[in-house]
């Protein structure tokens, strides 16, 4: 029977109870932070919007309504965010755009995290020359501002959402590698790793089976903290016409599309901007709250 008392006991009877209790305490501390809860709410809302987009959006995001009478309509009850120059309902486009945003965030995390982990743990575990070479490479990637390097990659690969995702992933992994390396350095000499080594496990096995799982949690926190940045970079690429291509309802590209009309039809560029802002604020609040709870020293 799981009760509050059972979870919060000072003398857990089993490892499972201790672990659950710890998670519960973290959760309680997390829920005590209203800003973090707002962040969590926004992120959950984004996920719901993305999953249920066709059900929520009142109109098709790509197909124009009546081009003669329904272009550039201001926000109203029928079009809560107005319509754009192609007579498309902006609200519907934003709802569908949540899918693209979520896709970008998820794919970048899925691509960049393993690269960072692999480079970092290998570097930290072996040390010496391997470490020097891998960290030098990491430093070189860190030497470019992220957006600029992503721009150069997209320029080379050609514009498009897939290439934008690859470019952002390529520029995102170095900080994770740094972090994983630092964690590995502290784990490397632990007794249980020495014990596994004595049993004759191969280095690859030790790194993937025993070191990486221990680095995973701190790297995941770091990735969460970076998600707002990823969203903003993707939106920036979209704005410059290098990310998702029209007529895709990508938020950054939508701002670029509304830019020409900003003085007369403010809502066309403003609405997608609000969406980007709210979602990245949500990730920032969530990440901030997570850091406060899980790493009190850094958050302070």
């Amino acid at each position, binding site marked *: 029977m799981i009760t509050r008392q059972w979870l919060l006991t000072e003398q857990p009877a089993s490892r499972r109870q201790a672990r659950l209790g710890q998670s519960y305490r973290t959760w309680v501390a997390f829920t005590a932070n209203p*800003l973090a809860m707002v962040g969590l709410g926004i992120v959950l809302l984004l996920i719901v919007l993305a999953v249920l987009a066709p059900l929520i959006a009142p109109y098709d995001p790509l197909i124009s309504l009546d081009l003669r009478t329904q272009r550039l309509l201001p926000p109203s009850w029928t079009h809560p965010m107005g319509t754009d120059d192609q007579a498309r309902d902006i609200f519907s486009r934003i709802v569908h755009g949540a899918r693209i945003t979520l896709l970008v965030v998820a794919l970048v995390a899925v691509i960049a995290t393993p690269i960072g982990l692999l480079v970092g743990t290998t570097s930290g575990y072996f040390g010496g020359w391997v470490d020097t070479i891998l960290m*030098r*490479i990491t*430093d*070189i*990637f*860190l*030497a*470019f*501002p*992220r*957006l*600029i*390097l992503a*721009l*150069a*990659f*997209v*320029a*080379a*690969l*050609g514009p498009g959402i897939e290439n934008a995702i690859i470019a952002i992933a390529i520029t995102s992994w170095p*900080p994770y590698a*740094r972090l994983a390396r630092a964690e590995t350095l502290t784990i490397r000499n632990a007794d249980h790793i020495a014990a596994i080594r004595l049993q004759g496990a191969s280095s690859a096995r030790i790194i993937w089976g025993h070191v990486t799982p221990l680095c995973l949690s701190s790297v995941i926190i770091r990735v969460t903290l970076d998600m*707002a*940045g990823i969203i*903003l970079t993707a*939106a*920036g690429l979209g*704005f*410059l*016409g*290098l990310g998702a291509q029209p007529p895709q309802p990508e938020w*950054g590209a939508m*701002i670029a599309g509304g*830019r020409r009309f*900003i*003085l007369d039809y*403010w809502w066309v*560029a*403003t609405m997608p*901007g609000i969406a*980007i*802002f709210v979602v*990245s*604020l949500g990730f*920032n*609040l969530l990440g*901030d709250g997570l850091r406060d709870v899980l790493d009190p020293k*850094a958050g*302070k």
Partner: protein
Amino acid sequence: MADTSVQGEGRRGALPAWPWKLVKLGATVALTFLGLLLVTFLIGRVVPVDPVLAVIGDRASQSVYDRVFVELGLDRPLYEQFWMYLQRVASGDFGESFLTKKPIAQDIARVFPATMELATVSIILGTLAGVPLGVLAAVRQGRLTDQIVRVVGLIGYSAPIFWLGLLGLLVFYARLHWVSGPGRIDISYEYSITPASGFLLFDTAMQGQWDAFRNVFGHIILPASLLGYYSMAYISRMTRSFMLTELAQEYIITARVKGVPEWRIIWVHALRNAAVPLVTVIALSYAGLLEGSVLTETVFAWPGLGQYLTNSLQNADMNAVLGGTLVIGGIFVGLNLLSDLLYTLLDPRVRRK
């Protein structure tokens, strides 16, 4: 924005003597530069655009094509091509822009002052606002002021800068007429200024052209405030965290015991210590502004490096893109190096006489 951990343990610890440190630093910088070149070179190689066709156009005969192919060194092995690339870059030759038909180095030299002026004004604004806000937040930790500073900072982290720029133009330029519109200066003034340093605020002030100065100021203030807001978000957050560390130190209690007034404890004792890592943060956010400038300059039609880069991108002018990327990467490395040196200068524990 760059969020490298600033207060590495090693930095505070004992460092080897000066000359050895300089050698090591030099080697690191040289290696990083080499890496930057390799990355841009490789990006240049994977481009689907045929570099020969970019030079001669697609109407040329096969014999011309073959001749140019050899001239560009494309028949040689990759490492030889890289070596040629290195030699060219070392002599300041980044190739020719396909768009402006001018050497890229010359193009960049022309647009760079605009970006630097914008970034400099921005970092000044960001520091002037960010440091006091961060100090205030630390002193009032956990109270309303702290929360407000935190939220103001988070908004800075979350809003897309190109969007804020558009809204800023809409509100402050089009509706309220408080600031001038896009561009660096009105055309009517453009030819009345003798270009000297390329920094218009400085040039106009030196030449006593106060009308033009006001005009330039009206143009720069909005983009600089926006970029400054972004650095403020980062600087205030880091200031807060450094100040909290310092205010918890024993020497603060010593100062209280001595009866030092509270303002002096905060602004002299604690901030002087927090300033040591802060310099690194400010240098990093100055570098981050280069990144922000790409999007801001597009919105404000600011004739700087960022706009040059985006124009080249949209026209697939690969030489110009790589040249610009390389220059920005180089400045990034340079600023990191500078912040390391400043660190040494500010912290007596690292400084060696």
